[in-house]
């Protein structure tokens, strides 16, 4: 159901989003919002937890840069039960990661409201900073707005690869989604997807509106392009893996890597000195650090079902391994086996946490 909330429209999308969040806080429908914000110094945005509506100036969820997958922050925020209601404003990949983490019992969602928004994609941090510096003083807000315009006009080749491959760039599994793609003015619309979402806009003056036809057309056009891109395969997996220095960056930034006791931690992957020598003697040589392929294979096996393809691993990789694409391709393959889509809904059970008695007969490939 799509709602138009009165008094939200500002001069641009950012201001409209700000006005909407302002209404949420003022109406006391929520006690705090978590949202990305610009700071006077520093070339980035960061998630801030705001309780005072006066601090909503300079929020910038549309800035084409993503420092962390905010699901990690939501996890930190919700680890103990609180009585305040928290609304987290998240990119669609963060919405999906949050839903996966709720299913994995890593996030307490009783007081959590998930607000998604149409995401125009992001640059890698390095590219973002470079482009911002070269943007001739249009300022950080100006940069975001001009980026949004170029997204709407269909340009997007230099964004992060996982964004180019992303086919879930609207937050339709969030409690509500702030929709702006396909809006003719600078107004935003509120798509309500759950009862929780409905309670979020309770008491706000607004009206229900019908389907946004232009929006759907725009979205479908982007989807078609991206689906075509998804057809590319990974041709040189082992070659890429040769570059890995096992720095664990990709594990640290992954929102879904949540185990406290990691099977792949350095102490478990390494060997004693004499064992290195024995292994080297066996084959004549071994590549150091050892087991980089094993590390990734195991990680992929563990993550494949829940990977939301946010691409943070790729951004964090110092060796420029295209992990975003690798995880996107393998993730989709694994998920397709069980018709599972991470973050689609809280009701879909995790494929590894459930089973059907009558399935996968073919896995027993050696019969009498």
């Amino acid at each position, binding site marked *: 159901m799509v709602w138009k909330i009165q008094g939200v429209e500002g001069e641009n999308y950012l201001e409209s989003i700000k006005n909407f969040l302002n209404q949420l806080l003022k109406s006391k429908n929520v006690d705090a919002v978590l949202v990305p914000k610009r700071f006077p110094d520093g070339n980035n945005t960061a998630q801030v937890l705001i309780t005072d509506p006066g601090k909503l100036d300079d929020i910038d969820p549309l800035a084409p840069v993503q420092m962390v997958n905010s699901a990690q922050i939501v996890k930190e925020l919700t680890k103990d039960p609180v009585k305040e209601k928290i609304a987290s404003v998240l990119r669609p990949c963060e919405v999906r990661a949050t839903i996966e983490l709720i299913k994995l019992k890593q996030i307490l969602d009783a007081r959590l409201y998930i607000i998604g928004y149409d995401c125009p994609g992001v640059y890698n941090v390095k590219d973002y900073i470079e482009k911002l510096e070269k943007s001739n003083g249009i300022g950080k807000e100006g940069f975001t707005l001009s980026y949004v315009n170029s997204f709407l006009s269909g340009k997007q080749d230099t964004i992060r690869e996982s964004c180019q491959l992303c086919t879930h760039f609207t937050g339709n599994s969030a409690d509500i989604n702030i929709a702006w793609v396909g809006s003719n003015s600078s107004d935003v619309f509120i798509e309500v997807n759950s009862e929780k979402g409905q309670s979020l806009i309770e008491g706000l003056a607004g009206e229900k509106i019908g389907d946004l036809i232009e929006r759907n057309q725009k979205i479908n056009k982007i989807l078609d392009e991206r689906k075509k891109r998804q057809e590319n395969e*990974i041709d040189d*997996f*082992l070659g890429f893996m040769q570059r890995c220095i096992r720095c664990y960056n990709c594990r640290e930034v992954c929102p879904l890597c949540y185990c406290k006791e990691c*099977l792949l931690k350095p102490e478990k992957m390494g060997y004693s000195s004499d064992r290195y020598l024995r292994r080297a003697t*066996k084959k004549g040589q071994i590549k150091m650090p050892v*087991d980089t*392929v*094993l590390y990734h*294979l*195991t990680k*992929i*096996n*563990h993550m*494949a*079902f829940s990977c939301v393809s946010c691409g943070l691993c790729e951004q964090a990789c110092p060796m420029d391994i295209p992990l975003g694409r690798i995880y996107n391709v*393998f993730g989709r*393959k*694994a998920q397709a*086996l*069980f018709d599972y889509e991470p973050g689609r809904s809280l009701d879909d059970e995790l*494929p*590894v946490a459930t*089973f059907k*008695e009558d*399935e*996968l007969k073919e*896995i*027993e*490939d*050696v*019969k*009498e």
Partner: protein
Amino acid sequence: MSRSHFDSGEKVKKKLKIIGFLCNWCSYAGADLAGTSRLQYPADIRIIRVPCSGRMNPLLVLKCLQEGADGVLVSGCHPGDCHYQEGNYYVRRRMLILKNLLEYFGIDKRRFHMSWVSASEGAKWADVVKKVVEDVRDACEEEVKTAG
């Protein structure tokens, strides 16, 4: 392998190293039965007993292959018969992804197998091992050919 076997000019087959992970309650007992019934099967398999096939982690399989095993077999109770009710239902799903991803990593699918062997199926165990050995051998030979 008998003397005449050598003399007949047939190629001597390379000994393989296949690691079998067998659940304690069914397949391990099945393999035991095969032994006590004096059934013949290739000696290319090394058996590791696991409490339940559900204990298997993809890392265990990958580690074997990486350390030089020619193949891996995971064997448990028949679906529905797991001693812990559900272990084999879960592992079935987990191993399915592994099997599907192996090829990308340059590992022939035929090096990894699963089977369900009960405690009374000594004969089936012998058959399973024969088939696995054949399959792994095919995979190895093909690899040598393409590599050469």
